[in-house]
């Protein structure tokens, strides 16, 4: 083996100027199972790895949410295997549900999954700029996931501090059962995840800037690529801050520093800390946390734009406006973190500034929404499953987004902040809307990824059940919030003033059962179609972007040795005078004017 290696190096010549000696970046198609499917350098395999990691995580997260809903209405129920859920267990469920969903689903699947798979293909590149870094990024994410799951199984169990990890609860191991090793693992997992996301963001940005095919100008990139690109920039600027915050939190917990912990008494004992500020953690956390919301939703916006145009057979309404709106949302996303802290005590002047900036996000969001509606209007809409999900995305984005301006005002946020209203708001817009973006992407790109079509009928059934189900769960939360049902409480069935809300809560729990049951339709459809679905041709949706010009599934280098040249914008549908109602981006000799 050693002899073989040295022979290989000798072949490169003493001066190393052999044209085939560049092994740093390039890689040939792998042959062994491990190099092909486990430690693969191929962005497509890595994309699928991210996707299936997120699919696993979403079922874990969903299961935890179901346990929470069961506990809310039957607090004394004795569950099989789990027994009676204690109040602190409820807090653990809450923490782990939030953390797993936000980091390992909403951040992982849209960006790491679809972005990894389709960004290079859509810009005509053979792979990411740094394939090894890409592989490292996935496996680091995987380790982070294992570490956070481990928190369930250590002494004391999973942490109690919520996905936001507010100090001093998160900073004091004596604060609760889950705050011992479980909390350390939680912080470690987040820190590892930050490193993984930074590597991913670096790769996405470099790839977008440097590996576009000939003719693929920035203003010819599909809006999906724009969304992934801006998301990567947000991640690059936000995750470093969360990493630093996490490091300091670990120091507070383990080395006795006082960044976040003031003079505090736990169980009658004065802790060794003093002078720290819980607000400091909140500032750092939300400086990351708010851009994180856009990290979750922007890729969904990109997918929605792509699909609404494709399935309406019309160019996207206002391409440039869409691009600038994505940039505007990304930029404003860094200016508004304080609106999460109106309750924490803040100068009214700061609160005013944060409030104004937050409401300003309504402007680019409205631009996007109206452009989506403008895209559909007058189109010859094909209501296939991906399109249904794209429309569902817009619907959820509007209904979840409209409660945003309410919460953006301190005077309304203060009574609503700790109620179910906020839960309804962010689940609709950040949770379910982003998930609908992923479903849309899955149904849309499945033929390209696996060479077969998903079942259309069950896709529709899944869509209508999921749409109705998620609305049935999260819409009433706004009402519950206004009726002052607190959030994060493990048990409120005993409270007299909430008695009349118990039937509604029961209804929501049943809706959760149905909605989660409907997800099994999706999973069965996914795996069944992978092997038994009807064969897909190379461009089943008659779309224009580059991934539909190549074979299905794409070869190792994406374009089979050819290098695509781009002549058109991404949404040339129904071009007057063109032979078909769509013009591929790579079509050299046909009508265009972009």
């Amino acid at each position, binding site marked *: 083996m050693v002899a073989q290696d040295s022979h290989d190096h000798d072949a490169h010549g003493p001066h*190393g100027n052999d044209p085939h000696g560049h*092994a740093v970046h390039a890689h040939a198609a792998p042959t062994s199972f491990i190099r092909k499917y486990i430690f693969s350098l191929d962005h497509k395999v890595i994309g699928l790895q991210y996707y299936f990691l997120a699919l696993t995580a979403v079922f874990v997260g969903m299961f935890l949410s179901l346990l929470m809903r069961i506990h809310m209405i039957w607090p004394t129920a004795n569950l099989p295997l789990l027994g009676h859920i204690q109040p602190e267990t409820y807090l653990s469920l809450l923490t782990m549900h939030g953390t797993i969903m936000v980091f390992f689903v909403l951040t992982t699947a849209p960006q790491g999954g679809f972005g990894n798979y389709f960004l290079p293909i859509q810009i005509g590149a*053979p792979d990411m700029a740094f394939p090894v870094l890409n592989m490292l990024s996935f496996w680091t994410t995987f380790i982070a996931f294992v570490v956070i799951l481990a928190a369930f199984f250590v002494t004391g169990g999973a942490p109690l501090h919520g996905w936001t990890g507010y100090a001093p609860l998160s900073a004091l191991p004596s604060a609760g059962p889950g705050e011992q090793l479980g909390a350390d693992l939680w912080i470690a997992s987040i820190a590892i995840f930050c490193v993984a996301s930074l590597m991913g963001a*670096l790769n996405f940005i470099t790839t977008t800037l440097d590996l576009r095919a*000939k003719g693929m100008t920035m203003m010819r990139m599909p809006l999906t690529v724009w969304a992934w690109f801006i998301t990567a920039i947000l991640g690059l600027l936000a995750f470093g801050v969360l990493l*630093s915050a996490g490091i300091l939190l670990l120091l507070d917990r383990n080395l006795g520093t006082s960044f976040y912990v003031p003079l505090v008494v736990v169980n009658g004992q004065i802790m060794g800390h003093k002078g720290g500020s819980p607000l400091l953690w909140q500032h750092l956390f939300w400086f990351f946390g708010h851009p994180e919301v856009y990290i979750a939703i922007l890729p969904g916006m990109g997918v929605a734009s792509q699909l609404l145009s494709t399935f309406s057979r019309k160019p996207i309404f206002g391409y440039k406006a869409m691009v600038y709106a994505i940039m505007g949302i990304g930029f404003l996303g860094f200016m508004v973190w304080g609106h999460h802290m109106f309750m924490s005590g803040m100068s009214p002047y700061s609160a005013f500034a944060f409030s104004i900036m937050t409401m300003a996000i309504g402007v680019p969001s409205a631009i996007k929404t109206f452009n989506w509606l403008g895209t559909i209007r007058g189109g010859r809409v094909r209501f296939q499953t991906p399109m249904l999900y794209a429309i569902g995305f817009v619907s959820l984005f509007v209904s979840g987004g409209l409660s945003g301006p309410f919460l953006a005002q301190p005077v309304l946020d203060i009574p609503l902040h700790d109620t179910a209203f906020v839960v309804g708001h962010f689940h609709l817009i950040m949770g379910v809307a982003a998930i609908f973006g992923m479903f849309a992407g899955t149904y849309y790109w499945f033929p390209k990824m696996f060479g077969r079509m998903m079942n259309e009928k069950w896709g529709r059934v899944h869509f209508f059940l999921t749409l109705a189900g998620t609305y049935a769960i999260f819409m009433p939360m706004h009402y519950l919030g206004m009726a002052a049902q607190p959030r994060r409480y493990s048990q409120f069935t005993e409270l007299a003033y909430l008695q009349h809300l118990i039937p509604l809560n029961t209804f929501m729990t049943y809706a959760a059962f149905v909605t989660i049951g409907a997800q099994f339709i999706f999973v069965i459809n996914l795996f069944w179609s992978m092997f038994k679905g009807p064969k897909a041709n190379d461009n089943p949706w008659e779309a224009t972007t580059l991934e539909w010009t190549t074979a299905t599934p794409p070869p190792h280098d994406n374009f089979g040795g050819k290098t695509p040249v781009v002549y058109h914008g991404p949404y040339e549908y129904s071009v007057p005078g063109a032979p078909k109602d769509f013009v591929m981006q790579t079509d050299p000799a046909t009508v265009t004017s972009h």
Partner: protein
Amino acid sequence: MPSQRGRVAPATAAGRRRYKTRGRVARGHTGTEAHMATFSSAATITDQAVKDPKTGRGSGGTRPPLPGGGGGDRGGGGSSDYGGRLRRTRLGLIVGLVASSMLFVSFTSVYIMRRGLPSLDDRTGAYVSDWLQVNLPTTLLLVNTFLLLLSSLTVELARRQITRQAALAPVRSIPGVSIGKERYFPWLGATVALGLAFLAGQWMAWRELANRGFYMATSPSSSMVYVLTAAHAIHLAGGLLVLLYAGATALQQKAVEDRRIVVDVTAWYWHFMALVWLYIFALLEFVR
């Protein structure tokens, strides 16, 4: 009609205006006179324009687009993409440094904010500042600074040396051409030695701080001293590992172009880390 099909409307202002109206008429586009008239007024474009398509304004696409991209055995012709890989790796470095900077920016904001926070004294019940002025071993840190700046110089010399080497490599490979032998000084080795000396010096500074009674948890000020210096030291140690890797690849007789990319990018990284150290030192020294 058929003769017009091969024609292409270029990215003229008029063309763009027509493009914008297209959405509204999409439903009934198939062959009404009005649309055909719009189309037939489009100009014909030459092959030249097709090969080098117009870019959108301010799009950043004015640079000639890359052929192939991936390089190596898949783009066909590995060495032709060497310049592309160098540029890409440098771009990646810049992006990575932005992420690194955010870490230090974040620590700085903690430093400034925590410094201004009062603390409740549990004996008197009064608010006092718990931010102690750290008695930094300034002389030692100045020596360390000198070592780091010197290493920045040596790594720059290493970078320039390997740039020359890489540039001459194709000439050397021509049979019968001799351009004489250049004596290569081990600048990389010198950089590694100076880098290690710096890290050892930082370790001594930590020991000295402990001798003076400033531990991690003594005061938020001393915590920040340790956090900032440790974050910088970890970054620098990462750079050292890459330099050692570059040295190892030299022993393995790897392609000089590959090594040049590694050394080049690490050199820029190293300079940046020297700047970060100057910044940290200034922060700790002047914002006590």
